[in-house]
């Protein structure tokens, strides 16, 4: 017994030692000189590998930065400070860093939009959407929270009403939630966009109204009320904001019968504010 243990230890130790020596030699022989700036750039980045920049991880983004392929403002998760730091190290001007935010374009929670079936199965939006899902509105939020699961920054939660809520103090704009949503309800918008149509239903008015009380029924009132010609248009039975033209104010939204278009409340939706709205026992 003792002998086997001894042989095992010695033979494995020997094999390991020989391999280690071989690797140590190879390491010296095949050493690659790397630009030390890569390491410093990587340290400045958030290191979350969220993919919001379009590169597979922070390291590849840093390498692209050095080659001049990526702009220093490319890191959406880092925000303005990171951009400035990166630009400082690279010795280039910081461009205009526009913060992107996730906007959930559906307000039809449990109270507003009904369910017309019972769904039993994998509790993810993608799986539910494959079956046609239980929600009466075939364009609306399914409420299984796949976007919340996709968020790496603790910036989303499901409200008691069954809709995702984005905390705008936490959202870094990486777009993971928008990619996760099987119904494309979440869109990424620069923070100077204020006016949103919170509905994706492309059915005609009466049909949309039947499945949800806050659906866009394409009545065209906001189109008429918009002070700039073409600022808001009807497209596929949905009011659509043209962000290059439309003033980002409330004026065109006052007469909306279902209150599905409104402006300028998103950035107040911080985690602390959201918690304050919840009933005490839920916090």
């Amino acid at each position, binding site marked *: 017994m003792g002998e086997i243990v001894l*042989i095992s230890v010695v*033979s494995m130790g*020997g094999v390991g030692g020989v391999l280690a020596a071989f690797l140590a030699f190879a390491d010296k022989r095949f*050493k*690659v000189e790397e630009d030390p700036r890569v390491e410093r750039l990587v340290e400045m980045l958030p290191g979350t590998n969220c993919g919001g920049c379009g590169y597979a991880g922070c390291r590849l983004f840093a390498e692209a930065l050095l080659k001049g392929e990526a702009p220093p403002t490319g890191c959406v998760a880092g925000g303005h400070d990171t951009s400035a730091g990166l630009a400082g190290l690279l010795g280039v001007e910081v461009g205009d860093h526009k913060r992107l935010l996730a906007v959930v374009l559906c307000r039809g929670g449990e109270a507003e939009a009904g369910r017309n079936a019972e769904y039993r199965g994998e509790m993810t939006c993608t799986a539910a959407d494959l079956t046609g899902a239980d929600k009466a509105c075939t364009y609306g939020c399914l409420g299984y929270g796949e976007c919340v699961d996709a968020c790496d920054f603790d910036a989303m939660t499901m409200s008691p009403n069954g809709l995702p809520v984005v905390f705008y103090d936490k959202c870094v704009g990486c777009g993971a939630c928008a990619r996760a949503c099987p119904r494309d309800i979440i869109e990424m918008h620069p923070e100077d966009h204020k006016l949103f149509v919170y509905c994706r239903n492309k059915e005609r008015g009466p049909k949309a109204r039947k499945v949800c009380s806050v659906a866009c029924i394409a009545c065209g009132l906001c189109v008429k009320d918009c002070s700039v010609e073409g600022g808001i248009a009807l497209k596929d039975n949905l009011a659509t904001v043209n962000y290059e033209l439309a003033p980002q104010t409330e004026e065109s939204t006052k007469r909306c019968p279902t209150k599905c278009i409104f402006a300028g409340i998103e950035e107040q939706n911080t985690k602390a504010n959201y918690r304050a709205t919840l009933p005490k026992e839920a916090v």
Partner: protein
Amino acid sequence: MKLIMIFISASLINNFVLTYFLGICPFLGVSNKTENALNMGLATTFVMTLTAAVTWPLYTYVLVRFNVPFLEYVAFIITIAALVQFVEMYIRKSSPALYRALGIYLPLITTNCAVLGLALFMVLRDYNYLQSIIFGFATGVGFTIAMLMMSGIREELEFADVPRHFRGTSITLIIAGMMALAFMGFAGLMSG
């Protein structure tokens, strides 16, 4: 004749990927472009051949000699890990482009069960040294064939109208299953 048998058996009939379902991770991960698939296949073939060439003497002259063959798993794993490390260093030096293309999958060859499987099968089937090397090489060739076929299909798939929820991994797995079925057709090749 035995060598040819081993070669055809390991590369086609008992293809590691499509018959034993070993090495699925790189098979699904790096098969989106033919070029990357070929490079990954070649790197794996190289590692496999080297593994066979190194582990056979290790098993025969160390483990069997000192009567501790039960250490084969440990010994094979550290040998494979060291070899992959070496290949990684070498590729990084000689071809940075290939190094970037393989990315995370290169270290993953270390934990690629096909490589360990090859070393264990080799011992199990009592191959001699030359047969082991041919077996290692043939396994790599089989892996490369599977990778190349998959990447070819996946490149065409880019233009196909796949239902949205089947895109990506789902359709790849379905295709892998169909390819495995097709490879079952090789099963009778050597018996008759």
